[in-house]
């Protein structure tokens, strides 16, 4: 291996720039920008989480105790926007920044200056978005989906639209960078079908981003012109159609939900083989399943709209297409279980989060299958059943995978081992509380509680109180996560080995821990046996 180059600590080019401003604000280094993305997304995770705490506090018992209904709507809207665009998506981009060059043997991202720009747009976008909360008229309160005509009643729509445009530009630039890096900068011998599944998942996700972010930008631009320039795209009185917006939005929105889960599939496909000490089962099927899910994501959008009164033919088409997604998703779950079968497993924190991911994401998948059945969806739609469904796939799915990834790669990033005991405490506290939080919401939805309401009938009181208790507990548990990460980075005395985990394979474990500022200046010589997926022919 070409470790000689990366072990050369005397080379000044391998040190980070000394000045704080120069290092972090002017950075073109994939590791530093990855770190910035991860810190940013963790910050947004806590801000979005604070909004969720307001929601759960108001819903703690029947009657309005804390906030006005309009502010409650601002909270549900901002919680979703901040969590989706501020927490989940940037954290995956951060992981991509850090890990993709290390995993494919590239010295950096293909377009390092654009990388800097795509990160530094984000704080401005979110300053605009969050700033609306302090303006006269308040923040957006029409839901993160911004359906007109309701969203056009808000006074903050221009700010929100501009913020969404900025986030979209950032995402598209990030996606271009990732595609260019993966397709052009792999070390010799790193064939496409030898790449880690995480890299594959991001390659596919990046194409989804490029395909749909402009669609979202178009949809919100039409909102803007309807509001301020007297167009009538969505105004029925002027010959427009409010449902048109929903079609355009969900043509973005459904691929968007896979943008938030495909990289998670990649992460889990790296971690389970490491701790099962056994190669991933059916590598090619895993890659093909991700590609199939990505393709299907473009032809299922109207399953979010079963209750808008679509023609029956359309409902049948979108129902069948949606149900089909269960097949490649099932393949992935079965293959993860098969990877575990016959392994030699240990259960460090990343593995615990990954196993919880497989189980709880599958539960979210089950409710997804139920929601796909249009006649049943006439009942489930816009209830807490849906809220439970998408929190199972986004919190115990996407967010758990990000936490798993953080524990898995923290030793590589920081050069220290995190505290395993506290990591496990964080895991058990999170996994129990998250189920206390979201499982009862299935019952609430089936019993008839609509989503996005600030107050409810007394029949829903007990499960709402249980859910709120779970919510506060889950929120508090994430402070443990913060503590473990801060301790690991700044205070941990336990040095991490280059190959931090016994069963870990892949190029990222051949560089020192912490990874030096520059790695793979000289492309590594690749031995298939050292790759996680090097021998895919048998």
């Amino acid at each position, binding site marked *: 291996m070409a470790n000689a180059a990366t072990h050369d600590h005397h080379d000044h080019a391998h040190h980070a720039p000394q000045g704080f401003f120069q290092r972090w604000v002017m950075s073109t280094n994939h590791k530093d920008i990855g770190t910035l993305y991860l810190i940013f997304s963790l910050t947004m995770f806590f801000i979005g989480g604070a909004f969720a705490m307001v929601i759960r506090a108001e819903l703690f018992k029947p009657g309005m105790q804390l906030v006005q209904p309009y502010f409650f709507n601002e909270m549900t809207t901002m919680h979703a926007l901040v969590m989706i665009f501020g927490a989940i998506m940037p954290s995956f981009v951060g992981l991509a920044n850090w890990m993709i060059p290390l995993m494919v043997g590239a010295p950096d991202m293909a377009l390092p200056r654009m990388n800097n720009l795509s990160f530094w747009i984000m704080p401005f976008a979110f300053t605009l978005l969050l700033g609306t909360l302090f303006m006269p008229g308040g923040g957006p309160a029409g839901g993160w989906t911004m359906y007109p005509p309701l969203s056009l009643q808000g006074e903050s729509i221009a700010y929100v639209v501009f913020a969404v445009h900025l986030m979209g530009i950032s995402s598209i630039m990030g996606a271009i960078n990732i595609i260019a890096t993966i397709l052009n900068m792999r070390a010799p011998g790193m064939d496409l079908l030898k790449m880690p599944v995480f890299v594959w998942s991001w390659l596919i996700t990046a194409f989804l981003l490029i395909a749909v972010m402009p669609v979202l930008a178009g949809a919100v631009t039409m909102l803007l012109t309807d509001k301020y320039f007297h167009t009538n795209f969505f105004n029925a009185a002027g010959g427009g159609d409010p449902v048109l917006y929903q079609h355009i939005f969900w043509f973005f929105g459904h691929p968007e939900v896979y943008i938030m889960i495909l990289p998670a599939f990649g992460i889990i496909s790296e971690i389970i083989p490491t701790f099962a000490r056994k190669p991933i089962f059916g590598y090619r099927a895993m890659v093909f399943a991700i590609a199939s899910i990505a393709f299907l994501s473009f032809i299922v959008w109207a399953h979010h709209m079963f*209750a808008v009164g679509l023609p029956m033919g359309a409902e049948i088409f979108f129902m069948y297409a949606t149900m089909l997604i269960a097949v490649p998703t099932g393949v992935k779950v079965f293959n993860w279980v098969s990877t575990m079968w016959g392994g030699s497993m240990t259960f460090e924190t990343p593995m615990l989060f990954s196993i919880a991911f497989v189980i709880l994401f599958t539960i979210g998948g089950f409710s997804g299958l139920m929601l796909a*059945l249009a006649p049943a969806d006439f009942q489930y739609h816009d209830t807490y059943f849906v809220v439970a469904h998408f929190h199972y796939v986004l919190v115990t799915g996407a967010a758990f995978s990000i936490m798993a990834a953080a524990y898995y790669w923290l030793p590589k990033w920081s050069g220290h081992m995190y505290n395993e005991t506290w990591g496990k405490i964080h895991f058990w506290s999170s996994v129990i509380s998250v189920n206390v939080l979201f499982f009862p919401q299935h019952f609430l939805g089936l019993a008839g509680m609509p989503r996005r309401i600030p107050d409810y009938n007394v029949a829903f009181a007990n499960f709402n109180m249980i859910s709120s208790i779970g919510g506060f507990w889950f929120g508090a548990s994430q402070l443990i996560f913060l503590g473990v990460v801060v301790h690991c980075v700044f205070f941990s005395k336990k040095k991490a080995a280059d190959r931090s985990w016994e069963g870990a394979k892949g190029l990222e474990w051949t560089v020192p821990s912490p990874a030096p500022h520059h790695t793979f200046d000289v492309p590594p010589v690749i031995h298939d046996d050292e790759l996680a997926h090097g021998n895919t022919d048998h």
Partner: protein
Amino acid sequence: MALSGGVAMANPEPDQLNMTKGAAEWSPYGMHMVALWVCVVIGIVVFGAMFVAMFRFRKSRGAVAEKWSHSTKLEIVWTVIPVIILIFLAKLATGGLTSFADTTGSEMTIKVTGYQWKWRYDYVEYKGKPVDRVGFMSKLEESSDRTRQLKSNLDPDKIQVDGYKTYLLDVDKPLVVPVGTKIRFIIVGGDVIHSWWVPALGWKMDAIPGIANSAWTKLKEPGVYRGQCAELCGQDHGFMPIVVKAVPKAEFDQWLATQQDEAKVQQAAQTAQANPATAPQG
């Protein structure tokens, strides 16, 4: 009218865990239960296998990792079996969709209009004859409205009708309909998008400005069925309930006749007001 008792489970009950069969001829309950059990069985198999693996193949028990990482046969099996299950579910669901979409043979038409934040009901047609000017607004009743104000300190549990706690689920004037009658609803939005949802009817339908959606129900038993707006429609989205009061046919006919008479009297009064020249001078 016996409104509680037999049909009590049609409305949300404390600690209710599951959907109910509802009160209408068309119901998604069967579909829901089949899908639920399919998921439970698959879940037991998959999670069962996972837990067996986690127990048997742990390093601490001395398990040594095997080398295999592929099996075309297995992968075909777990692609084909889900496809078969999905075809079965799709067939069931397609049947449900077809019967839901069929509004033919309805004996009554009611137009439902969603407004921020109340509903309007207009009786359009009954037994093949147009109904003359029967329509009214329906909004959250007053005691709930007072209780739901921020920091009102009023007890939501105190609001009861016939022993059922109706906080936020009661209106000033319910929609009255006959049982055993196929009713077609035309659902529209007056300002923003709303969604008309009574769980006991088994469906919801969006009320969208500029679009006339249709749906139908045929209620089996007399009762009071409660629901809410299901599409976020602004600050009081949570405070625009729906109450459908189903009564025997004869009683409904009588109610409708009274409403039509009242409408006539009202119309006469309005005409008199509008044309003071023809009214007797005092």
